[in-house]
């Protein structure tokens, strides 16, 4: 759903699914993820792997998020239960607890830097990496994927974040 488009910035709200996984990398885990979702875990911290409809990000050494660009909600729980059979891993369905904002257009950084101090320069935030920071006083995850930024935050902050972004485009 299109939130706002102006001054060569487009902001869409998407309805996506997400799994948050806690735990250290193990080949077993990697295999599990592969078999469940056909995507492999990134090796490096902050790295984002992308495979047409799925992105998998290593947010920190023991924290991974997998985001599905098409609804898989029903399959998700069984998959999560499978992953959770591994007693050293915690997998949680994060689909509905978060909102998903897609920001594109050449002025997106200019707009975002009105409401966040985050340094979006290539050297600090290369393509296919992720970051966790504050946008408009809200804790967000940002995923840098081909000429788009995907921003997620907790649902209860959703209205606030959206109006902050709209305001930043207006003023």
């Amino acid at each position: 759903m299109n939130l706002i488009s102006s001054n060569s910035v487009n902001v869409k709200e998407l309805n996506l699914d997400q799994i948050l996984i806690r735990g250290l990398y193990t080949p077993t885990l990697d295999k599990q993820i592969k078999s469940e979702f056909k995507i492999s875990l990134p090796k490096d911290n902050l790295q984002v792997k992308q495979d047409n409809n799925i992105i998998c990000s290593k947010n920190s050494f023991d924290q991974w998020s997998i985001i599905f660009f098409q609804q898989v909600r029903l399959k998700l729980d069984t998959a999560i239960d499978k992953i959770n059979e591994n007693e050293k891993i915690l997998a949680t369905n994060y689909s509905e607890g978060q909102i998903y904002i897609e920001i594109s257009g050449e002025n997106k950084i200019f707009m975002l830097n009105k409401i966040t101090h985050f340094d979006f320069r290539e050297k600090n935030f290369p393509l296919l990496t992720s970051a966790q920071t504050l946008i408009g006083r809200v804790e967000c995850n940002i995923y840098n994927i081909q000429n788009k930024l995907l921003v997620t935050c907790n649902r209860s902050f959703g209205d606030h974040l959206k109006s902050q972004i709209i305001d930043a485009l207006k003023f």
Partner: protein
Amino acid sequence: MSAQDNRNSTRIAFHQSVNFTFDGVKYTGFKGDTIASALIRNNVKIVGRSFKYHRPRGIYTCGIEEPNALVQILSEHNEPNIRATVKQIYEGLEIESQNRWPSLENDLGSITSLFSPLISAGFYNKTFMRPRGFWKKVYEPLIRKAAGLGKPPKPFKTTSTQLHHHVDIVIVGGGLSGLLALRSLAKTKLKILLIEQDSYLGGILKNSNKISTIENKNNDSWISEVEKEIEGSKNIKVLKNTLATTYNYINHLIAIEDLNTGTAPLEGNVDQILHKIRAEHIILANGHIERLVSFRNNDLPGVMLTGSFEKYIQRYGVIPEKNPVIFSNNSSSHSLIKKLVDLNCKPKAYVDSRSGDKIEPDLLEIIHKENIPLFTNAHIEGCDGGKQVQEISVRDSEGMITKLKSKMLCVSGGFNPDVHLFTQSKGVLSWDDNYLTFKPDRSYQNTIIIGSAGGLFQYSKLANDIDTKLGFLNQEPIVKIDFKLNESDNYAIEKLWETKHEKESRWSKSFIDLQNDVTTKDLRQGILEGFDRIEHLKRFTTNSMGTDQGKISSINALGIVSEILDKKVSEVGTTIYRPPYAPLSFASIAGRSTYNFYDPERKTPIHEWHKKNGAIFEDVGQWKRPWYFKNHSEENLYQAVQREALQVRKYAGVLDGSTLGKIEIKGKDALEFMNLMYTNNFSKMKPMSARYALMLGEDGMIMDDGIISKINDKHFIATTTTGGAANVLSHMEEFAQTEWPHLNVYMNSVTEQFCTFNISGPNTRLIMEKVFKNIKFDNESFPFMTFNNFDYLDSTVRILRASFTGELGYEIYVRPSIALKLWEDLFYFGKDEGLIVYGTETMHLLRAEKGYIIVGQDTDGSVTPQDMDLEWMIGKNKKDFIGKRSLTRSDTIRSDRKQLVGIRPVDQKNIIEEGQHIILSSNVKPPVKMLGHITSSYMSPNLGHSFAMAVIKDGKKLIGSKVFVSSSSNDAFEVEIINPIFIDKENKRLVS
């Protein structure tokens, strides 16, 4: 004699006249004029009254350093203390002068001048002491009346925004050195931001007559060529009308951009942008500031700094006065004299404190050629003329006084590198004996200072200065720049801070701080009284504490002090320049982040339903929670809560508990971890069962509580209080990561993954059975404090049998996307069973009737589990858990600590108030011994009277006895101390 236009100035659009009013009188200036230049054009000399003595004051400078010409902008929400020398005029601008009554011309306040000998430094501290009591009632109110400069502004909702930058290089100042540096860096790939406070680039090239050509081009064309060169480049950004105000640690700059220079602000439009900049290197090219010389009446309208006078001619195309007297202790007046001669406005006289042989030959040459009266080795003794300069007294080398008639006196006391930002960066200064000023010596951040900002006053050395300092950036060397100068390349100055008065009168004054009316006499007195440290002197005399922070005079003050103390200026040192460089608008600092953006409002997924159904919300942390529900518009809090509370105990009610914190905990060592985090012992707990649990800080005090659901030994779900959610999670993370990294355990917040509905009341089971047709809710299949997952629609819900009201109850955990559907199902099936929705206030009341505590209300960070009568929750045979050891310290094992009890009024008509104290008698004459305080109090519709919970000293022992409770109407009534459980002590309802 009066002001005259200099039409060949290119900065003013003489074809575009602009009308504005000053103190109600209509004036006309031109596009590009500042208030000051326009007033000068209109021969307005007095623009304000001084702070203390209400002396008439004029325009002293031509820029941000102005101490005198501060005005109030009526047409912009009454904004006070605006520098007339900076603010550009626009059609319809309304200005008012400040600190005078009834009028600028005749200000009653000026009678204080009569008493001025009394109003010396430290005056307030030595007087107004007798008779006692007069200070509060008479003196201080009078002093406050006299306080302040401008009048208060009108209410204003900010329309300014903020912008963060991350760049390789910031250049502060787009003047000569700044532009040279920028041009030489243009070809590097470095990301550069140039900040210029003025509305155009060029600085001294446009503001003075000092340079007639640069690289054999006239100044304007040279500047526009440079601008063209940089326009193309992608990596350079130029911010005009932008002032760098603050230099923080790690090369962090704050700069304020004015978007309304020379135009009227439009309501609702962004009027200014606060730029927050992080840079690898900061190049300070912010130039220098001219300083004054103190002499008798050096504050009279008509006295102006020489460089400023020149700037009015060059930039603003107005000659403030055709034949001024020029006074200097240095070589810088040359270009002005030349200019005046060219304009055929010969100076009345040139007075130089230096002896003839010290004065630059070329300067002497023009003076003799034009036979301008010359006084060498001479001083200005003072000037006279009531409300403006009429007569100027020159003391010549023989000490003879010559009186000159002129309305204008230009003064130059020399230059200071503008070190304000540099010292903010914590850079260290050193004294330059040659130029008699402080200049940057060593920087402690990546700061580079070029040009006169660094104390370089020789054009011929500028290229080399920049090349050597920027070389490491592989900048393109400048090597050499050709200048044609209207003054000698060698700036020379001789020490002169103050001139002697001819007749020492108690009323005669030489000012050092014009805005705060500090005289050189005050400095002397301060030192006499022992304030011989410059920071003391500053505070004692208020020198340089004005809105200009003494930009044109602080160095002079140091000079004078150093002479009185007979010390080197470097020994006297300088006061610390406080950020910001110039006053910074509150609105710009706040930006958009006020009102609805002050702090996020968190809402549950069914927030809209609550709004539609008459919810009144309360702020709990960042959450908006339904406090109570009006079932008709007249219903008030009390009525609603009484209704809701009765209904729940009688039938059923449901609360939106989605804000409760929820944490999923899992790992091989999850059980051990949970046993360490909470007081309870979870080892013996059966899977799929739940338990009320307490979390302590290491100090043993109750930190949070919640219900722990155990899926198995490796997998738990914990709930927390709404306010405590974030703390509890980070508390867990802290210990998992730092204390017990060997434990394999992870936690995710699932607060937002589920909505939580707390449904309770005798009819609850009926309703649940209707909503969840295939689930058995009888005691056997679904006992108290157990939970399970069930299918609901195409998803699953988790249902936990628990209750915070003391009634039969369930907590339903459901996905946000189907939460509203379930919520409405509950009411659809529940309405026949009398189900109602209730808010937090009723929830508080009901749990209190049952004697359940609320962490943060009945506890306050000084309360242990024992104090709350919760020993039973402490896993006795656990070796360790957070806070355990603290429970056995000498003070925490005392048996007579403050403990939780119930309170009931003896006369049931009385209402107990929260926060009131338990006392021993009805006597409330202070001081009264307090046993403790009322933590919770409600009017119970179920008990039919007011009841309360309290923590009181030795409470457990006192149960059964009668004491008193204070009230806000300042009396007390008798109450009985009882057990804190008021309803269903046997838990019949709970497990029914």
